């Protein structure tokens, strides 16, 4: 075959770069999982599965796991829905000002995570932020100096909304691009056969979008799972460790408790969960060679 070696050339630079740049850090994480590292004397002692067992059996683990799964599911579904709706709307024929709307829908993506975090922090501040006053006017709150971030579920709700807000333009972007490559003739042919909106959507749009839909949703899922900055700036894992997700817990373990071994163990658990989720996901959506 004439493309015998060419195909390797296409992928080798990528694989080489990634392996070269991530090999050492990943090896480091895997290594320190099984050791207790003293960051002052740089001595390490083998503890086997000690770190992992400690984490899995700790009472906080359940909370963190719950939070992370809840967080990942809701933010991904939220971003997917908003993204899909935006992409479809922007694709509508009769709509003008696509440029302006498109740019507005892109805005959340352009703001840095830290800045976005501070904006939402300011917005939800009981004294100076708008949110409590709006909620009070809507009758949902009885008074304004209630700390919405001071309660686990309301805090989670706020950061989830903030994360959806930040990430949905990614889905919009990818799905818009995906919609572009769907051939118009397919729709016209279906219309001739008398298909309605829903039928067209389910039988043409979704199947045609499937590759990009499946992949970008998975990417969004992995990305949300490991997302750190936004939630840290807003809650720092508070109140009292109740809005910790895996990434914030790892940060706390590594930089506040100086327990590299446990931080690495947590990272391994994260990796395992995400890996399994992605394999199952790809299988369920029947995506593959």
């Amino acid at each position, binding site marked *: 075959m004439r*493309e015998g070696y060419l*195909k*390797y050339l296409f992928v080798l630079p*990528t*694989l080489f*770069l*990634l392996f070269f*740049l*991530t090999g*050492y*850090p*990943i090896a480091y*994480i895997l290594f320190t999982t099984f050791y207790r590292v003293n960051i002052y004397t740089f001595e390490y002692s083998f503890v086997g599965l000690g770190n992992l067992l400690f984490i899995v059996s700790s009472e906080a683990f359940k909370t963190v796991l719950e939070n992370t799964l809840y967080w990942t599911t809701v933010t991904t579904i939220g971003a997917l829905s*908003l993204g899909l709706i935006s992409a479809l*709307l922007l694709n*509508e024929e*009769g709509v003008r000002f696509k440029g302006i*709307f*498109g*740019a*507005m*829908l*892109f*805005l*959340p993506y*352009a*703001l*840095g995570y830290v*800045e976005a975090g501070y*904006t*939402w922090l300011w*917005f939800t501040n009981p004294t*100076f932020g*708008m949110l409590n*006053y709006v909620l009070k006017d809507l009758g949902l709150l009885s008074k304004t100096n209630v700390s919405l971030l001071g309660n686990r579920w309301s805090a989670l709700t706020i950061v989830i909304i903030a994360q959806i807000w930040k990430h949905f333009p*990614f889905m919009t*972007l*990818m799905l*818009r*691009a*995906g919609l*572009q490559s769907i*051939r118009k*003739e397919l729709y016209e042919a279906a219309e*001739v056969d008398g298909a309605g909106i829903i039928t067209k959507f389910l039988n043409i749009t979704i199947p*045609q979008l499937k*590759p*990009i839909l499946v*992949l970008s949703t998975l*990417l969004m899922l*992995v*990305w949300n799972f490991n997302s750190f*900055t936004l939630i840290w700036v807003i809650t720092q894992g508070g109140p009292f460790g109740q809005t910790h997700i895996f*990434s914030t817990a*790892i940060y706390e373990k*590594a930089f506040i408790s100086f327990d590299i071994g446990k*931080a690495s163990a*947590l990272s391994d658990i*994260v990796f395992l969960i995400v890996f399994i989720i992605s394999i199952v996901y790809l299988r369920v959506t029947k995506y593959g*060679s």
Partner: protein
Amino acid sequence: MVREGDNDMKVSLRKLKKNFKTILAYVGLLILSSFAIFPYYYLFVSSIKPKDELSIVPPTLWTWRPTFEAYAKAISQPIFAEALLNTIIVSLASSGIAVFLGILSGYAYSRFNFRGKNKTFQVILLRNMFPGIAFLIPYYAFISWLGWINTYQGLTFTYLVFNLPLAVWLTRGFIDSIPPDFEEQAMVDGCSRLGALLRIVLPIIRPGIVGIFIYCFANSWIEYAQPLTLWTTKKTLPVALFSIVMGEYQIDWRMLFSMAILMSLPTIIIFYFLQRFIGKALVGGIKM
């Protein structure tokens, strides 16, 4: 719009349905845009409020005495221009390389079959499956061992590590949705594989490529933790922002807000101009 066997009423009914759909679309877009834009609005208004109105209770949504002094102060910081240049260089370089390699590898994963294809495809996403925080310490050790602290290539390759896997995955997704028949046909006609890629596939997935480029660019632009760790003597824009704004005891909120907006402008402008490549349908398309 008009088909065989139509009478006037059917046509106007169809037109009405279409107009209704369009209005619904506008309503939907307005709602979504308000959601997307309101924090920005909040940011913007807070940044132009005079000092005494900033933390007024209850907070107001508008000010009658707008002032742009925070912006003027922000731009006049000497570090601003240098940080801007650094950020442009690193973001462009890493997005360009990511897109380039992404196209090549995405195409290969979509069209070719080779040993270890599926395994390596999942391995590419490996780093993203680990939480980024866990990487900070070993990565810093590794980069300083390479002697790449404070270098452009150090930061560029760092961004590549998280941009490239997604570029490859997404490109593959876009290419997967195109049947390979056209390339086969073109190759039968004597076109090389590379030519097929460039002349047939690329034009079709152009919106996707532009989208990926924008996405990589935006990610690199706002990245904060990596340049903070890996660049000690130089700064990128997000780092410079916090160095100016974050005090030991006080945060200068108006400066923070104004710089946040300034910082997001280049990405927005680039998006606005590149948008037409994403939104515009190809003329003619490809017929079966």
